[in-house]
C-alpha cells in the first residue's frame, strides 16, 4: 500500500493494518525533516489546514500546527469554547462556513464523542480527529506506536500495559484498537470505578492492581488522571490514587528489564509517575513521543492531501 484512500482519520477502529503501516512508515521518513537546519519542505504548499479546537489543548494543537508548517501548508487555528454551543453557532454551521472557505483538511478536537464523525459526513474536506471526548485520539495512538516501533523494533508480540483512568481515556481506546491490530498483547489496569464495562470484549485483560498489569511488560503506558474525577467519587483522594497507581522504582521492577515508560502528557508528577521515572532517559520515552507526534501528524496531513500520488 502506498496511498491512503480514506477521506478522514476518525479513529484507530477503522484503520487497517496496512494503513497503519503506511502511516508509520511515512512518519518515519518525515522524522528527519524536523532535525534539519531549515525545517521545511514544500510538499503541501498551497494547502490550507484548519485546526478547529473546541477543547483546550497546547500539545496536540501545536503539534498539528508545526506539522502543517513544516510541510509548507497554511495552518489556521480556531479555538472555540464549547460553551458557545449553547448560545452560538452550531458545529454544523461552523463547519459549513469553514467548508465554504475551501480548506483542504480540518483537524477537530471536541469534548463530545462522535463530533468528528458528524463533521465527516457533512463536509467534503478531510477530517482528522484530534480527540473526541472519551472516544478516540488516533494521532496519539499512532505516535505511540511509532515510538514503540522505534524503541523496540516491533509491536507484534509485545506486552503493553495501559494504567490509569481507562474509562475516560480516548488515548486508551485508540491504543487498544491500534495495538491489538498490530499484534500486541494489551493489558489495562486502573481503579474498578474507572474501568469501563465489558472492556475485556475489546480484546484486553483488565486488572485493578497496577502490579498485575505491568509484570513482564515491554511497555508501560501511564494515563493522565483528571483531578476532578475525585469529586465524582471515582477514587477517594489523589493521595490514595498515587499510593496504588503511581509508577515508581519499586513496581517498575516487575516489568521487563528493558521496558519503556510512556505517557501522553501532560503528566501529574508524583500522581501517575514518580519524577525520577519520568525523567530517566534510560527508559522514559515521553519526549520521544512528542517528537514523533510531529512526524505522525505530518504523515497524516500528507497522506490525506493525496500524498504518494
Amino acid at each position, binding site marked *: 500500500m502506498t496511498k491512503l484512500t480514506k477521506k478522514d482519520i476518525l479513529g484507530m477502529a477503522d484503520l487497517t493494518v496496512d494503513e497503519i503501516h503506511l502511516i508509520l512508515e511515512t512518519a518515519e521518513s518525515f522524522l528527519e525533516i524536523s532535525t534539519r537546519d531549515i525545517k521545511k519542505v514544500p510538499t503541501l504548499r498551497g494547502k490550507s489546514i484548519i485546526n478547529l479546537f473546541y477543547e483546550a489543548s497546547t500539545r496536540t494543537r501545536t503539534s498539528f500546527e508545526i506539522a502543517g508548517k513544516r510541510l509548507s501548508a497554511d495552518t489556521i487555528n480556531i479555538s472555540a469554547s464549547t460553551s458557545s454551543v449553547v448560545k452560538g453557532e452550531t*458545529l454544523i454551521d461552523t463547519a459549513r462556513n469553514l467548508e465554504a472557505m475551501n480548506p483542504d483538511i480540518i483537524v477537530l478536537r471536541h469534548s463530545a464523542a462522535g463530533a468528528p464523525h458528524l463533521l465527516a459526513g457533512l463536509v467534503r474536506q478531510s477530517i482528522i480527529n484530534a480527540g473526541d471526548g*472519551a472516544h478516540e485520539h488516533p494521532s496519539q495512538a499512532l505516535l505511540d506506536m511509532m515510538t514503540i516501533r522505534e524503541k523496540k523494533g516491533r509491536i507484534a508480540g509485545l506486552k503493553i500495559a495501559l494504567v490509569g483512568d481507562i474509562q475516560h481515556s480516548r488515548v486508551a481506546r485508540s491504543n487498544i484498537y491500534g495495538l491489538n491490530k498490530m499484534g500486541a498483547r494489551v493489558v489495562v489496569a486502573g481503579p474498578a470505578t474507572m474501568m469501563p464495562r465489558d472492556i475485556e470484549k475489546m480484546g484486553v485483560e483488565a486488572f485493578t492492581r497496577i502490579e498485575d498489569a505491568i509484570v513482564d511488560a515491554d511497555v508501560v503506558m501511564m494515563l493522565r488522571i483528571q483531578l476532578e474525577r475525585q469529586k465524582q467519587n471515582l477514587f477517594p483522594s489523589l493521595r490514595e490514587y498515587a499510593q496504588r497507581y503511581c509508577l515508581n522504582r519499586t513496581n517498575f521492577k516487575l516489568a521487563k528489564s528493558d521496558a519503556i515508560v510512556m505517557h501522553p502528557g501532560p503528566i501529574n508528577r508524583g500522581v501517575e509517575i514518580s519524577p525520577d521515572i519520568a525523567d530517566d532517559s534510560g527508559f522514559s520515552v515521553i519526549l520521544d513521543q512528542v517528537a514523533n507526534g510531529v512526524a505522525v501528524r505530518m504523515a497524516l496531513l500528507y497522506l490525506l492531501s493525496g500524498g504518494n500520488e
Partner: protein
Amino acid sequence: MNLLLKGGRILDPSRNIDGVMDLLVKNGTIAACGPDLQAPPETQTLDVGGLIVSPGLIDMHVHLREPGQEYKETVATGAAAAVAGGFTAVACMPNTLPVNDTRSITEFILRRAGEAGLARIYPIAAVSLGQEGRQMTEFADLKDAGAVALSDDGKPVMDAALMRRTLEYAESLGLTVIQHCEDLSLSAGGLMHEGYYSTILGMRGIPAIAEDIIANRDILIAEYSGTRIHIAHVSTAGAVRILREAKKRGVRVTAETAPHYFTLTDESLTGYNTAFKVNPPLRTAEDVAAIKEGLADGTLDVIACDHAPHARTDKEVEFEYASNGISGLETSLGLSLKLIEDGVLSWPDLIAKMSLNPARILNLPSASLAPGACADITVIDPNRPWTVDLKAFRSRGKNSPFGGCALPGRAVLTIVGGEIKYNGLASQ
C-alpha cells in the same frame, strides 16, 4: 352520515370477539356488529374484506409539545400524526412549557384538541409543580379539568416520600400515576445504555439498574400503600423481571413498552446517529428478548410509542447535545405488527395492548366495538407493505431512526366518534 364496514375481521378484545362480520355505525356510536348487516338509508358502505377492524387504537404516552414548543409539534399536528398512525386517542405528557401542572394548561390543551378535531386528546397532568419533584399539584382540580392521569414523565419522581403520598392521594381520586423510572444519581451524564457499546464509543452510560431500582422502589411503595401504579417505557430485562414477580404476588402494577425497545439495540449507536438517542436508552439484545417475553406473557400490558417529536435543530448536533426521543406515532403500529409476524403476540393480544389495556389503565370510555359504544374504530391492513418516508410524516417531528424501513402493514381507516379522520384505503 352512517357507516357500514363490510366483511372485515372484527377483533374486539373487550368481548373476546374475533370473526368476519359487518359493523354498522349510526350517529357516532356502534349500532350493530354481526353477519350480513343491511345498510340503512344514507349510509356509506366500505368494503373492508381482508382487513382488521379494531377498537380505536390508543397511545397512552405521547408528547405534543404545546404549549411552548410548537416548533417541534402542536396538538393539531400531533393529532394528525395520531390518526394517520391509526390512533383514535392519545394521552399527552405534561412536560410542556409551561408544564401542565394547573387547570388552565389542561383546559388549553383540551381546547386545542377540540379545534383540531382529529384524535381524542387526554391530558396527563404533572405530579409536581413544574415537574420539580417537590410540591404536589392540585390533583382533584386537574382531574376535574380533564386530566386522566398524573406523571412527571421526562423526569422521574425521585423523592420516595412524594411518590408515596402521590400514589395514596391519587388513588382516592381514581387517578392513575405513571412513573418514568430513572435513578438520576445513577444516570447522571449518561447518553446511552452502559455496556460494551458505551465503552467503545466513549460515551457515559446509563446503567440498566437506574431503571430497575426506581421500578422496584415504586412497586414496593404501591404494594405497601395498596395503590395502583403504571410504569412507563420499560426497556430493561431487569424491570420486566421485577414487574413479573410483582404481578405474581398481586401488586396492582401495570406497564408499557415502546416499539423501539423491542426493535432496536444499543449497537445502533455506533455511527453516533442522534435519531437513535432516546431515554431510557436502547438496550442490549438480551433486553429486547426480555421485552418481547414480557409482552408475550402479559407482564407488559401496553405498547405506547413515547412519541417525542423534535425539530432538526434539536437532533442535528453532537450526540451529547442532541434531544432524546423518536417521533413514533406513525410507525408504532407498523413496528408492532412485526410482533405478530414473529409469533410474539396474537392479533387479539396486540389489539388489547394498543386499545383495551390503555383504556382500562387510564379509565377511558369503552375501547370496544359493542353496540352502544362510541364509534372509535381503527381498520388495519396487515398486508400492505410500505416504506417509512419521514418527509411524509404528519408530525412536525421527522426524527425517527425508521426512515426507509420496510413495515408489513398499516392503519387504513381511523374513525373517531363515527367520523372518518384518516382514510388511506385507496392509497398505495
